[in-house]
């Protein structure tokens, strides 16, 4: 297994230790707004364990993916809704 992986967060490359979650990569990229709430508020991860659904983003075209439950893979394209 390689020691690091690189993903693109809103087009910006971020290198993470292998096994990292997409949520951590997004924050490392300096992005804190993962999605907008029903009334347009900025939101980011809360529970970190797949329960709150606040960390959902678009991963490789799949909308509403929970970034805290998705492991980073090389070349992954991550889009936030900020």
């Amino acid at each position, binding site marked *: 297994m390689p020691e690091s992986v690189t993903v693109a967060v809103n087009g910006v490359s971020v290198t993470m230790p292998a096994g990292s*979650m997409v949520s951590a990569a997004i924050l490392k990229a300096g992005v804190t707004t993962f999605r907008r709430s029903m009334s347009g508020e900025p939101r*980011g*991860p*809360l*529970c*970190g364990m797949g*329960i709150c659904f606040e960390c959902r983003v678009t991963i490789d075209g799949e909308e509403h993916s929970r970034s805290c439950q998705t*492991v980073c893979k090389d070349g992954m394209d991550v889009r936030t809704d900020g």
Partner: protein
Amino acid sequence: MGKALVIGAGPAGLAAAYRAAQSGLTVTVVDDNPAAGGQIWRGELAKPASREAQAWFEKIRSVDIAFINGARVFQQPRTGTLLAETSEGVIELNYDSLVLATGARERFLPFPGWTLPNVMGAGGLQALVKTGLPIEGKRVVVAGSGPLLLAVAAYLRGRGAEVLLIAEQASQLQLAKFGLGLVGKMSQAFSLKRQLRGVEYLSRCWVIAAHGAGKLESVTLVRGGRRWQVSCDYLACGFHLVPNVELAELLSCVVENGGVKVDQFQQTSVANVYGAGEVTGIGGLDLSLVEGEIAGLAAAGKHDDARGLFPVREQQRKFAKLLNNTFTLRDELRQLPAPETIVCRCEDVTFERLREHHSWRAAKLQTRCGMGPCQGRVCGGAVEFLFGWRAESVRPPVLPVRVESLISSAE
């Protein structure tokens, strides 16, 4: 009684799986996370951080257990079969006996600003750091209630965070009583104390507001008559834990005082369905492990062996009782939300819209509170504390699943 299915790969699930496999059952463990370990041993499969975790992972490797990770159980089409969604589609899981070890989540309480990005659960921030978030040099306020706050603060500090303070809502008197009950867990307590040297641990203290434009910039704390503001990068805030009982409720298991009701062999009100660990009530790691062992042995029909573990469980239950009494939430916390504070984050339902109602059912129908993707998992613990409302029913799917999954489950 050949096939045992364990839901949850945290300590309770692993202990159950180990005992069941050792007793000759064919065991499968299913978990929605990408790797085994649960929250407490998250990411430790490859690199265990404690001797206890290492010992358990070694035990698990010494027996034959099938692990299915990244699978979310969402429905029981008939007794003895569960459906789970994976990235490759829906899988069917069959069992003769079932162990529910679905763990717990943090209780979140709403206060002004709690929806700002970088306000997270205490366990929430720890999970993010464990899975790759760099925390070195970041200023963190840890707040809420429960022993988890200390563990999280020590962990974050160990990873280079600047932990500014720990705000615990319980009083000094409550904490002192708990301290007396720690005998037996002294080594853990001492090691935490050493790791947290120099960090203020303020009892009877809590966050009343988080501030920032677009993301967290500071928090306001209150303690006695004093209010003050602290600048920070992250707020890690959780008010102890609540059991994850949704799957148990879907299977019609009786839930009592917020946890799944079990008999002396950890069997729920439903035959051949067992409950182990935090899902039966919050009690910590050691209670989870022994409950898991008892459930695994009982599922394999080894009731005498299970009985041999009752004294250990009894001792741990005493500790659990003390734990929960110590971290009982104070009434003042019900005053935390302002009228315009959002309580249901999925549907953006404010406190003032909720307080007009008399039950969660009425509030749900009128406001959609608890009807978004998390299905009340976050606001449920809050409205229970704020208004005394309990969720009335759980319907399949217990989690949002893709339309394809529902279609394939109907076929």
